[in-house]
């Protein structure tokens, strides 16, 4: 569980004709993480999949556009896994192009209806405005002998420029209504040559004519508004009809669209692999990383599916490739929520110990100790269970934290802050009974945590080939030696009043080695080097001291938890019966939410800063094999 899954580098040589099948087979196994590096051989530089990728992306884009208007499932199940060749993909693309043209027509029609509806609303507003004016609206409809009228609306930002432009054409512009981002205008001017100049300007300005309805006369605007309302109703009917037609279209073409989606899903693995594929002539090369356990099934699948000969070379990752090797994630469902929290820091580099199980254990222990209460723990468990549908995997996280809290609550004999309960005596002791002991326990816990973190860090560096770092680097062996000597000396100082020659020599010796190592690797003037070495050495002492003392918060919060409860009881005692009950309920809620949240953050801080920073680089990258989405084959799982 702690050790990483060994990975192998796989190089496949296949014939170009077999690439689509090879990609599909690799996707079906779900165990091939592509290596996009260019092969060393310069001749192997062709990219055979680029046309295929273009066709795929074109077809996929069209399908996504169609899917915005009619429902097309994202990952329909694929019952028959088959290879999608170039010609089929091209044909699908063409089909989707035609269908998009059909669907787009509906889209444009719906937009046209929306636009007409908007125009009608604007006309209604304009007529309502005109109704208050004592003018003959009919006169605005048509050209007269001496004057032309243009009634319409223009985007507000264009009005001023349009005014200037129409003035140049011998016309006048009047604004009479502002609605949203549109301005209603009337443009008046002489007919004739100038009028023809106006047309292009009006269209450039986005002018939309608002036709005055036929038969309108003085005082009849109100009737015409009713007519417009009827037209709006007709447009609503038209919209409904269009939506019905769209639905009919969708029903008629559903099978084709679904099949197109399936085809694209089957083509997807080749497209995903494409950046990693190179070719020379008819030979294609693709490389990737595969978990060692999955190699036999991968080779078997390729042998079964590829019609033409192929070759598979397997080797161990080279030391210089360590950073490129992906790390297979934790598969345990129980550890999944903790995995999410670990990933907030980073992903383990290949070869490093998986910190997730250790993180889970130490997190729960520290949380329990800092928030130890049977009642509070039970509430957390029940809440996590109740909201398990929403919390999903994090429900287990809540349940585990709650159980830990219950366990420590039993140790402390605390139920909703009440201690010394006759029917529930403390298995160990209540925190406030002996705060000094609590602090000592936290201190010992912190020392053990830091030592373990250092040991893990040393191991991780050894397996990643960084021997020098394992010994002389930060939190390496020499650092650990210093820390142990420092602790021994500190213990001696606390018990017998003397640091001790042995611990003293160990401390000075290890600090000297570290300082010497740093000195050799620094460049610059002597004084500057000396200053840096001095400060870094001092920092080593301070960091380890402060990191150790940092763990005192583990007991501090358990004491705090008890103290908060006391404060609530004190407040409750000052009130009447109803007030007492209310205070107890609200007070415990306050503890649960506020203190619970703070404790979680504090534990995360200890884990990340005192723990991960010592042994977890977080610079790895996750194993992301190519997969066949929608496949009903349940064997498509990595080991």
């Amino acid at each position, binding site marked *: 569980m702690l050790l990483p899954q060994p990975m192998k580098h796989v190089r496949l040589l296949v014939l170009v004709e077999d690439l689509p099948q090879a990609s599909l087979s690799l996707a079906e196994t779900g165990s091939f993480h592509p290596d996009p590096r260019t092969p060393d051989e310069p001749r192997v530089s062709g990219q055979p999949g680029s046309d295929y990728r273009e066709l795929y992306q074109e077809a996929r884009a069209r399908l996504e556009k169609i899917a915005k208007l009619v429902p097309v499932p994202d990952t329909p199940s694929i019952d028959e896994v088959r290879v999608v060749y170039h010609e089929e993909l091209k044909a699908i693309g063409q089909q989707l192009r035609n269908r998009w043209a059909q669907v787009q027509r509906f889209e444009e029609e719906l937009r046209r209806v929306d636009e007409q509806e908007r125009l009608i609303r604007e006309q209604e507003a304009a007529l309502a405005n005109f109704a208050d004016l004592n003018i003959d609206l009919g006169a605005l409809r048509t050209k007269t002998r001496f004057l032309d009228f243009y009634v319409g609306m223009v985007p507000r930002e*264009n009005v001023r420029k349009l005014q*200037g432009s129409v003035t140049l054409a011998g016309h006048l512009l009047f604004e009479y209504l502002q609605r949203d981002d549109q301005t209603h205008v009337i443009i008046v001017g002489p007919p004739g040559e100038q009028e023809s100049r106006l047309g292009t300007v009006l269209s450039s300005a986005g002018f939309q004519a608002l036709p005055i309805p036929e038969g309108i006369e003085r005082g009849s605007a109100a009737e015409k508004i009713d007519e417009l309302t009827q037209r709006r109703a007709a447009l609503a009917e038209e919209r409904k009809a269009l939506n019905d037609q769209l639905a009919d279209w969708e029903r008629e073409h559903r099978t084709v669209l679904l099949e197109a989606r399936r085809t694209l899903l089957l083509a997807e693995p080749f497209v995903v692999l494409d950046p990693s594929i190179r070719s020379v002539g008819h030979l294609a090369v693709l490389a990737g990383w595969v978990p060692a356990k999955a190699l036999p099934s991968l080779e078997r699948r390729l042998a079964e599916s590829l019609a033409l000969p192929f070759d598979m070379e397997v080797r161990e990752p080279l030391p210089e490739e360590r950073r490129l090797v992906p790390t297979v994630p934790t598969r345990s469902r129980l550890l999944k929520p903790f995995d999410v929290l670990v990933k907030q820091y980073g992903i383990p580099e290949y070869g490093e110990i998986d910190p997730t199980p250790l993180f889970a254990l130490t997190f729960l222990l520290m949380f329990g100790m800092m928030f130890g209460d049977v009642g509070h723990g039970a509430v957390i468990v029940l809440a996590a269970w109740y909201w398990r549908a929403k919390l999903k995997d994090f429900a287990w996280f809540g349940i585990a934290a709650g159980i830990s809290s219950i366990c420590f609550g039993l140790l402390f004999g605390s139920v909703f802050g009440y201690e010394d309960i006759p029917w529930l005596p403390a298995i160990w002791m209540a925190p406030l009974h002996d705060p000094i002991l609590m602090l000592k326990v936290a201190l010992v816990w912190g020392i053990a945590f830091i030592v373990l973190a250092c040991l893990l860090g040393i191991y991780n560096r050894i397996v990643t080939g960084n021997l020098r770092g394992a010994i002389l680097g930060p939190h390496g062996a020499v650092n650990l030696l210093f820390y142990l000597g420092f602790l021994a000396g500190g213990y001696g100082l606390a018990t017998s009043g003397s640091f001790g020659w042995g611990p003293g020599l160990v401390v000075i010796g290890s600090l000297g080695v570290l300082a010497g190592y740093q000195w050799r690797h620094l460049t610059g003037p002597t004084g500057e080097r000396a200053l840096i070495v001095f400060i870094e050495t001092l920092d080593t002492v301070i960091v380890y001291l402060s990191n150790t003392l940092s763990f005192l918060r583990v007991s501090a919060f358990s004491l705090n938890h008890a103290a908060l409860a006391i404060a609530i009881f004190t407040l409750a005692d000052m009130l009447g019966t109803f007030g007492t009950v209310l205070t107890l309920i609200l007070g415990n809620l306050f503890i649960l939410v506020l203190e619970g949240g703070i404790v979680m953050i504090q534990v995360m801080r200890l884990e990340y800063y005192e723990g991960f920073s010592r042994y977890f680089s977080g610079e790895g990258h996750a194993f992301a094999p190519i997969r066949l989405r929608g496949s009903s084959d349940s064997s498509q799982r990595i080991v």
Partner: protein
Amino acid sequence: MSAAAGDAYLNTRVSVMASRLLDTDTVGKLSRLTLPELAERLTLPALLDDTLGSNAKSRAVEQALVSLLLIELAILIRPMSATGRALILKWGRKLALFNLTALLRSKLHNLDQTETLENLFELPPALRLPIPRQELFRAESAQELLRILEQTQYGLIARQAREVYEQRRDPFALEAAIDQRYYSEMTHTLMQFDSVSLQPLRRVLGALLDQVNLIWMLRFRFSYHLNPSETFFYLVPSFRLLHRERLLELVNIDNLEQLIAALPPPLDAELAGSRSLIEVQQRVAKLTAQEMHRVLAYSSSGVARALAYLILREREVRLLFSLVQGRLLELPDDLLDMGLELAEPHCPTTMPAAA
């Protein structure tokens, strides 16, 4: 960093960068260098790459020069306030609009996608079109492309361009709408500044708009033969010389010489005797450059000086690109000098035939 400290830092940065602007003598010396010498002097290794054709070299050089400009832009906007940064980024978005125009032309004229892609500028995230270019390429038409962009911060530009295109189906109107919207938005952004920066910024943007308006006016009236109304509509009134009322007078003039004579000082004197649009373009560009240098020298507003510097630097980048292009195409030195504004242009034909 306090506002005063930020401005002091910005001013210092601009001064340091401005000291490296090329003067006419240096441009003249550069124009006499061979291609390998230019490659070394300007640190353009693509010019020496024999595996690239001349088109590819040209594109690589243009991208390299633009990238330098963008790096300097990124450095200058760091200490600016949000308003200043918004203005400078708006200015920088002209490159994104260049990409947009290239994509639209590709859709309108069914141009080769690969070649179009190769000619697009690589831009940093803050200046890029907000939709991945592949997604824009997948649009089946110019209209669809503009509809996609309407959902982004280019919404106003895209909407106006689409409406114009739907009404006119005219690529020219589409591109003119985009350009016009770009400058209109710059002027709107200017209004958010306080009085300390507003005056010098109005000078900078005003000079830029004067140049743009004059060139557009001449081009639309005398090359494309648009009527005065339509011409006026596409212009963006400036804060300085070519303000709204003046533009209304000028667009009605049917003759180049009369129009130049009717320009306000100093434009009338500086442009008197211009025989072609290219000559007008060069002369007014020089005037604008002089104005930018004045702002650089005398203004205390960091943002205004930064914008002035970037405008000058962009001009310099274009000149350098012209030089490299000229050398790649093996043009004679006298043509190169014209392109680099070291000599007066003499077109084989006169206005209005010249575009």
